[in-house]
């Protein structure tokens, strides 16, 4: 029939076109790097970026005073050097000679001050500024809207910036590597209302093209101190990780996989052992936490019983097929102070039962026990195993409550605000914002901090971390204090750590100059980043 003939002709011509069309050519210097899990970037204003994909792009477009190298040390970026005052409260940065934006205009100290103020300004509508820059003197005043001037940041002259902080901090410089501390052109931002759509770059790359819903293309920025040999970086937005994996396998991508969106677990086995497979243990820990204000988990013995009843090795090696590393402590491996020993609560069913007895609780009297979790990835499988283990070792029936991710966040928030109506027990994850024990201990488990959703509280722990937080200079003592605090949190089960997830990505061997570690992909030297033809 006519229709059928038409279809045949159509099909043949399509195949013909495919056969003669040139294959997706990988010209010498175009790096194709996918951004998974999103369908567009929130904004190119560094103060507004809020997800890891956004931060990846921001890190390519903008420079900060400092950034992280492959070993996660803070190194100079747009600041070539700095000095710290005796009391550890005043940092004086000298900007690099010749540092320029992508239009050739110089990066000046007033740009730095403007950028920091902009990140804190409530009208900007970002949350990363107030969160990561809160230690700068005057930051809270700006963030609450009381004053437009950031008293703690001063442009001494065109190339010198002085930043005063509220309390000494060994990780202040790490906080300055974040998106909220990146430097934008104050001249452009104050004169052009649409500047975010075509911003001047202070970083190694500048924007060439932004196709909403599809992807972004970057080209090198001649004003940056490390000149990239690449012709361009193409970053498509791929919502679905499976799709990104397929694209990589059919030669359409050079780098696939990112924080929270690695190679889909079903494909890890087939990808392992290939030259492009890269795997690392993340600076993150998956844990079960408890509502310390409600029975039965207000009793440390009950929490201990639940901790001792779990066989984490079986969970990590058998259930999750060795794709994760079992964790018995709060700090993930690789974070400073994780090399110091901690006595943990290892699997011991007899001790678990004994702890339950010590608490004066039996499976009959414990009442309803509910574990809430967000539905994503392997969570469902993990909690099912936990439920089975608790039943086997303690005889307690734990109910599982799956929630959609946003709903889970809302319930966590509720647990913080009104613990009486909050979650009883929940399964969650924390990944390091910066590689420092403060991010895992003080920021998560100190009494009444925002992230301490379960309201864990121990005065000795508080005293130790408070002391360690403001110690600078004497690294050994500081880490020792954190170690003692961690020991308390582990013995008292502030968190019940389960495992450190791994991140698996694919990087084409033709790509050189990328380093892969617990914080993800880092490019230590942009002049070395290249993809050979």
């Amino acid at each position, binding site marked *: 029939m006519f229709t059928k003939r038409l279809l045949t002709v159509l099909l043949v011509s*399509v195949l013909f076109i495919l056969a003669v069309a040139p294959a997706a050519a990988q010209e010498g210097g175009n790096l194709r790097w996918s951004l998974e899990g999103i369908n567009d970037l929130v904004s190119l204003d560094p103060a507004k970026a809020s997800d890891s994909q956004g931060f990846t792009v921001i890190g390519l477009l903008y420079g900060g005073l400092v950034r992280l190298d492959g070993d996660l040390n803070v190194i100079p970026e747009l600041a070539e050097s700095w000095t710290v005052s005796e009391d550890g409260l005043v940092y004086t940065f000298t900007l690099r000679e010749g540092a320029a934006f992508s239009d050739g205009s110089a990066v000046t100290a007033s740009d730095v001050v403007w950028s920091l103020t902009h990140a804190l300004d409530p009208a900007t509508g970002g949350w990363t500024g107030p969160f990561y820059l809160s230690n700068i003197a005057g930051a809270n005043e700006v963030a609450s809207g009381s004053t437009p001037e950031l008293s703690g940041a001063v442009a001494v002259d065109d190339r010198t910036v002085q930043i005063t902080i509220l309390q000494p901090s060994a990780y202040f410089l790490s906080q300055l590597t974040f998106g909220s501390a990146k430097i934008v052109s104050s001249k452009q931002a104050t004169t052009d209302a649409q500047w975010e759509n075509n911003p001047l770059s202070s970083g190694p790359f500048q924007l060439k093209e932004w196709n909403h819903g599809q992807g972004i293309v970057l080209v090198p920025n001649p004003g940056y101190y490390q000149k990239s040999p690449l012709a361009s970086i193409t970053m*498509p937005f791929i919502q679905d990780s499976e799709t990104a994996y397929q694209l990589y396998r059919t030669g359409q991508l050079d780098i696939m996989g990112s924080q929270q969106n690695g190679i889909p677990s079903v494909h890890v086995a087939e990808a392992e052992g290939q030259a492009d497979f890269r795997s690392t243990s993340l600076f993150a820990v998956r844990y079960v936490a408890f509502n310390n204000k409600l029975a039965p988990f207000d009793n440390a013995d009950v929490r201990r019983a639940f901790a001792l009843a779990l066989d984490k090795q079986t969970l990590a090696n058998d259930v999750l097929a060795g794709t994760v590393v079992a964790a018995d402590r709060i700090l993930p491996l690789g974070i400073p102070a994780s090399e110091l020993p901690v006595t943990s609560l290892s699997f011991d069913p007899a001790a678990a039962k004994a702890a339950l007895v010590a608490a004066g609780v039996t499976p009959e009297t414990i009442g309803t026990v509910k574990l809430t979790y967000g539905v994503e990835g392997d969570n469902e499988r993990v909690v099912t195993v936990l439920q089975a283990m608790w039943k086997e070792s303690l005889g307690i029936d734990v109910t599982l409550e799956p929630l959609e991710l946003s709903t889970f966040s809302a319930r966590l928030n509720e647990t913080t605000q009104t613990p009486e109506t909050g979650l009883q027990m929940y399964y969650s994850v924390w990944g390091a914002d910066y590689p420092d024990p403060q991010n895992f201990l003080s920021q998560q488990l100190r009494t009444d901090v925002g992230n301490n959703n379960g309201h864990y509280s121990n005065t000795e722990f508080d005293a130790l971390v408070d002391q360690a937080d403001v110690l600078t200079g004497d690294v050994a003592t500081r880490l020792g204090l954190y170690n003692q605090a961690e020991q308390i949190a582990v013995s008292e089960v502030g968190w019940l750590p389960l495992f450190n997830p791994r991140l698996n990505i694919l990087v084409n061997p033709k790509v050189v100059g990328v380093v892969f570690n617990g914080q993800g992909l880092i490019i230590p030297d942009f002049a070395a980043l290249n993809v050979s033809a």
Partner: protein
Amino acid sequence: MGNVILRRFVSLPFVIFSITFITFWVGFLAPGDPILSMMGGRNDQATYERLRHLYGLDQTWNDQYFRYLGGLLRGDLGLSFRYQGRPVVEIVSGGIPVSVSLGAVALVLSLSIGVPVGIWAALWQNTTAERLSMAAMLMLYSIPSFVLIPIFRWVNYQFYARGWPSLPVAGWGQPEHWIMPVLVLAAASVGYIARLTRVSMLEVLKQDYLRTAYAKGLGQNRILWVHAFRNAVLPIITVVGPSVAFLVTGAFVVENIFAIPGIGFLSVQAIQQRDYPVIQSTTVILAAAVVLMNLITDLLYSLLDPRIRVEG
């Protein structure tokens, strides 16, 4: 018939209004909000409150709803929460032509394959070939798109691995990018339309007026196309309206997996992140599209079938 059209057009705004009302209400009640979603588990109550106020999320339900309605009437769909201050109109207008063209091509394809297959099956009824093809059509109809897609991809990968011409796995912009998504979207509709056409044709072929035509000595072709087909096609047309709804929901899966920047792609992420203005707008647009298509097919049907016209 003018009355029918008029009544339908008048009811359109009421339908849209009810949809905005329900969507807004459900969105408001759903736990979670865009700020928490943005902050990703980092708890800073002061910042959270401040941002809620900035986005007007701390106002009462009525305030928020009427502000939204007011904007809608002026053609202003509001500002997105997630894409910090970008107008929803801008975000959504990029996606509409993509989804419409994808859906239109899928619809045309499913009609151009389904109808001929159905007619052929009716003519060759009770043969093995016909039974096999109808079984295949049933399979296409019942297999969900998210099962079909990995199958397609696996086949495509086998082609790629052997160096034969293969299709791009995802993306948009080149003609090759259309092929797999359109095939997947059209697959279910093809099955349905083929089976429906077959049944409809069989019904018509049994009619007395066709026997009369044969008796009169009219040729096979003339009977088939001029008399039988024209009557059999009417039920197909009524089905096209709801098919659009079917395609729209199918598009959610297809667009997300193939990374096609259409409305479906936007909607899913907006829902996950509680980007209320975008959710509102995509729901209203999709609902309006379905209602409009139904109206058009009803009108078309009444144009084609004089019996319906008379009853108005």
